[in-house]
């Protein structure tokens, strides 16, 4: 349909005439009160509906499936169809999370730096007080961004980090922290701040220190 509209936009008069006749024909059918679908037409229509449902779920299954599908064309087609309208991901808690993450921040105040504040833990505690007030969004926001950054540093030992300005995962986390400082902690623009990202597992704990950041 979209392709058809595009063609008509390009000035193809034949398509305008064709669309006009389709419209007249459809309006005749729809205004005919006596029109009844024959059994054969009903069967045909049922088959069409079943085919649409099968097609839809085949593409959704290919997209969200745990099975590796080697057909690249099919996967590309499923991606085009499913994302972003029918987007879904059912890899729920697989693998089970085994690392506790903390996001510490401190900023320059009048008498040197403030104390380190674990802003993710603060939001988790707020959310625990009342589950239905929607604090879940802030916990997920900070937690997801932190997970992406720590995962991108896969097995890197504790260190002082100087993140690449093009690193999207860090860009997103830094934006959130920056806004959080301005919004929640009322930190003024151009104030220096530092981050400490901690990943505490059963066997390993790693910490990444990022300094010389400025509130925008």
């Amino acid at each position: 349909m979209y392709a058809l509209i595009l063609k008509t936009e390009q000035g193809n008069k034949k398509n305008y005439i064709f669309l006009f006749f389709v419209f007249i024909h459809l309006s005749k059918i729809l205004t005919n009160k006596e029109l009844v679908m024959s059994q054969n037409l009903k069967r045909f229509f049922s088959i069409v509906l079943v085919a649409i449902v099968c097609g839809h779920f085949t593409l959704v299954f290919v997209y969200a499936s745990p099975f590796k599908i080697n057909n690249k064309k099919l996967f590309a087609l499923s991606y085009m169809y499913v994302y972003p309208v029918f987007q879904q991901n059912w890899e729920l808690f697989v693998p089970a999370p085994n690392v506790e993450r903390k996001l510490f921040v401190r900023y320059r105040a009048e008498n040197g730096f403030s104390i380190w504040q674990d802003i993710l833990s603060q939001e988790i505690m707020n959310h625990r007080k009342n589950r239905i007030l929607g604090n879940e969004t802030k916990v997920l926001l900070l937690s997801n961004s932190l997970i992406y950054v720590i995962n991108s540093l896969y097995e890197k030992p504790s260190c002082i980090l100087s993140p690449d300005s093009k690193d999207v995962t860090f860009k997103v986390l830094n934006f959130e922290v920056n806004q959080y400082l301005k919004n929640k902690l009322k930190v003024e623009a151009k104030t220096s701040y530092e981050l400490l990202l901690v990943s505490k597992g059963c066997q390993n704990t790693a910490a990444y220190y990022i300094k010389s950041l400025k509130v925008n």
Partner: protein
Amino acid sequence: MNKKAAYFFDKKNQIKEIEWFRNALYVFLLYKVCVYALQFESLFSNERLIYHETKFVNFIVSLVYVLNDHYSVSLGVVFILLSAILSIIGLLKKSNYLTNVLLWLIVTNLTNFLYPTLTAGDYLLCNLLFFNCFFIPKESFNVALNDIKTAIHNTSLIAIKLQVCLAYFIAAYFKITDASWLEGYAIYQTFQIPEFSNSFLESLPYSFCFALTYLTMIYQMSFSFLVWFRPFKIYLFSFGIMQHLLIAFGMGLFGFGIIMTICYILFLKYDN
């Protein structure tokens, strides 16, 4: 073949359950509107925490990224208000194809705008709202058109049920191929992570969590097959509702827990 075609055309199936399902869905959307209002500063204001980049993919994709691509605070307010108004229209049983499609587009836009805060429940909500567009159409004077509407209504009902079963099947398959679930420590380990726990869940004994891990896998794997048989439904729904309430109130994934529970309404059968 006649019997199969009759399923689609004979009558609109499960009207009562669909009305309950719709009402639950609209009430849930009104709850989400309240959350957006409470969290407005963090999610929608000029000082919002959410990072955005605009990109044009194609016309259809841009329809669900209108809010993301052309964001302003006032546009955000319009989208939130529209989703509230359309949900209320639905609750008053005044909805039609147009209002339902609009509601689906608006909620999908809000969902895509809030991408870093999403859970699987938010994506499922968009899918449910899509199929909801075709439920209980208004009668038209044309018999053939009514037949088509009835067939599409019944197809959407089947499609939502298949969507829920597919979700459970895929989730179960991922779990049975993962070491932490197979060895039975997945839930205990998850409850030790503060994001997905509370003081009560943290203190649960390992043996209880071990049993819960296996019960969850068995439940998710069997749901897709057993939910179609009436005798199993009571057991499946009892366990499912308890589990999703635990996820909502215990683990703090409130939206996800509630939306999964709402889906069960369509598997009830009061027509027969």
